[in-house]
């Protein structure tokens, strides 16, 4: 079930752009004259759906990935560092970032940097990574105190094994439990950014943007909203179900 929910949107997102014809025609907005009708500027909704998944998935995935790439080492280094000053130096500024409402961060940074996918990825990462760092710092603190790690250090184990392999393996569960929700959150942020008019060009071919921009035509031509929205929800629910299952399987082994 979960796998199916993930596969359809993912396939559409990844392969879709190859099936978009080059000479796309334009008609009036919200016309029901083709399969899924037209959107708010008269483009074929089906073509937009094909073209618009890659950015959503890419932005959400990249931003989530980047949040982890920055946040996990950040938190782990803070937790494992011997001079506790390092911990403070790393974590205090993040508290600060958490104290500025994410909305303000989103509006300000996106306004300063202007729209564009890299900006959006950056902003979503910026909003997410302090939280990631905090969670993984907590996890790493617990791991750092484990006798198993102390035993490895007594064995003279390499830095690689004590600081990367073992903590990494031990944090897989935390990571899996966190990533489903975080990815969903990233998808949501991308969509909200469009509503606030930051981060994405207002007529980008992007499922999240489509939901926002086509909502005015909900009564005339619902597919322009419904199809991308359903795809996003299917992707989120599917991913979470898959992660849930993986977690249960991991717990059993």
């Amino acid at each position, binding site marked *: 079930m979960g796998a199916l929910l993930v596969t359809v949107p993912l396939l559409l997102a990844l392969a879709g752009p190859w099936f978009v014809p080059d000479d796309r025609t334009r008609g009036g907005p919200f016309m029901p004259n083709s399969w899924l009708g037209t959107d708010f500027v008269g483009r074929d909704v089906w073509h937009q759906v094909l073209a618009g998944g890659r950015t959503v998935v890419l932005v959400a995935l990249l931003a989530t990935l980047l949040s982890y790439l920055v946040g996990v080492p950040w938190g782990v280094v803070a937790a494992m560092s*011997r001079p506790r000053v390092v911990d403070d130096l790393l974590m205090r500024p993040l508290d600060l970032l958490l104290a500025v409402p994410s909305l303000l961060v989103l509006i300000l940074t996106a306004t300063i940097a202007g729209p564009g996918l890299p900006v959006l990825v950056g902003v979503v990462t910026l909003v997410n990574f302090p939280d990631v760092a905090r969670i993984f710092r907590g996890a790493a603190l617990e791991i750092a105190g*484990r*006798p*198993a790690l*102390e*035993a*490895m*250090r*007594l*064995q*003279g*184990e*390499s830095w690689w094994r004590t600081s990367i392999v*073992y903590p990494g*393996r031990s944090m897989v569960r935390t990571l899996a439990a966190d990533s489903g929700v975080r990815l969903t959150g990233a998808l949501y942020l991308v969509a909200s950014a469009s509503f606030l008019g930051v981060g994405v060009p207002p007529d980008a071919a992007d499922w999240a943007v489509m939901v926002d921009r086509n909502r005015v035509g909900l009564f005339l031509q619902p597919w322009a909203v419904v199809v991308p929205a359903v795809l996003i929800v299917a992707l989120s629910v599917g991913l979470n179900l898959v992660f849930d299952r993986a977690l249960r399987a991991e717990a059993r082994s």
Partner: protein
Amino acid sequence: MTPVVHVENLRAVAGGRALVDGVSFALSAGRVLALVGASGSGKTTTGLALLGEHAPGVAVSGRVAVTGRIGFVPQQPAAALNPVRRLGGVFREIAALHRGDPAELVATALRRARVPADLLRRYPHELSGGQQQRVVLAQSLVGDPAVLVADEPTTGQDPITRAEVVDELASVVAQGVALVLLTHDLDVVRALADEVVVLRSGRVVEAGATADVLDRPREPYTRALVAAQPRVTVPGDRPARRPRLELHGVTARHRATTVLRDVSLQVGAGECLAVVGRSGSGKTTLARCVVGLHPTFGGEVRLDGRPLPRSLRKRSRAELASVQYVFQDPRSSFDPHRTVLSQVARTAVRLRGSADATAEALAELAAVGLDEATATRRPAGLSGGELQRAALVRALLARPDVLVCDEITSGLDTLTQASLLDLLAALPCAVVLISHDLAVVARLADRVAVLHRGDLVEHGSAGDVLGLPTHPVTIGLLGRSMEGTEEKRT
């Protein structure tokens, strides 16, 4: 007297393996039955069956009849107390389930378990291990149970606490409660039990009156169990040797509280120093200072006259190899995701650059009775005793000059314990042995150090300290241990 507990042909099966196989016994009010046997022999499974419970995946059959209410004191009392609730609230809740004035019921239960009433305002974490045990006991006593099942009530307790627990249980029994005692501690059995059932791999090996079974065992297994039990004997003096490990004025704290104050000690090459003391007296902290896991201590630790860096990170490979440590809790000191063998062998690889570490590790594991099939499993597939031995091999593969062993015999049955002690006795290196069990200390130690609330209160040759104890704590520890060996007088 009609029995209040009647068990007939109890079987527990999990995954096609019988955990408990045809166990039968009966018990009347005011009497004590002890189930003894090695770790994994089915004691807890039987105890749970009395409560009508079983672990997930275990199928229980047979007849279990209990007249009246049954109370249970689980193996780890700390885990049985809700960390979020104050004690008083829970007591009131339990009392409300029974007839009678709740305040009266609680007061009675507390008195019977010797819990001071002013503890009721505390949270569980604000109690010592012994107090936690008594609180759990008191909870079970609210509303007068007919039967009490106590699972390993003395494991990991120091002799004084252990004696207190025994006293409490004895007084409860004196009030007419039938007690089922699940333990591997034969001293406790002698002190409390009227009858003994010896289990081995889920089967009853031997059963009968305590005096009969323990003093005149019929079966070889029982005989071995009893014979393997060490006694506290005052050892003769051995000459002091050149000091190898020296501690000078070691002072350590956990955050604001000082847990070790100005401790100075020496251990000679090939000597065994035993560190004893009540629970929480700072023994583990002392060990961690020595091995470099508690780098913030004050004072100095020297090896062969040269100061050792405080922190593990600053120690060279040779220094790491020369001081090794066996953790108090073996299970948590292994990575659950890798096989035991691969983890054990790493010591030889990292600290001695051994080319054929795996073969070396296999050989040493075999020497302590762990075959290859066992060693290539992950830690979850090994029993506590097996893991304890694997942890010892892991440390020994470094060929240390000083080996620090923290409580490595608690939770083991006497047979397994005996084989481990033999191994330790044969070691060429200096050993720092932390133990609650003075019988073990007496068997191995050349010198004894007694800690009390972070202070070194007594330090000398084993003969002097155990033979002529001067500090009240030592006398207390020793007295209780001696007492424990005396048979129950009824």
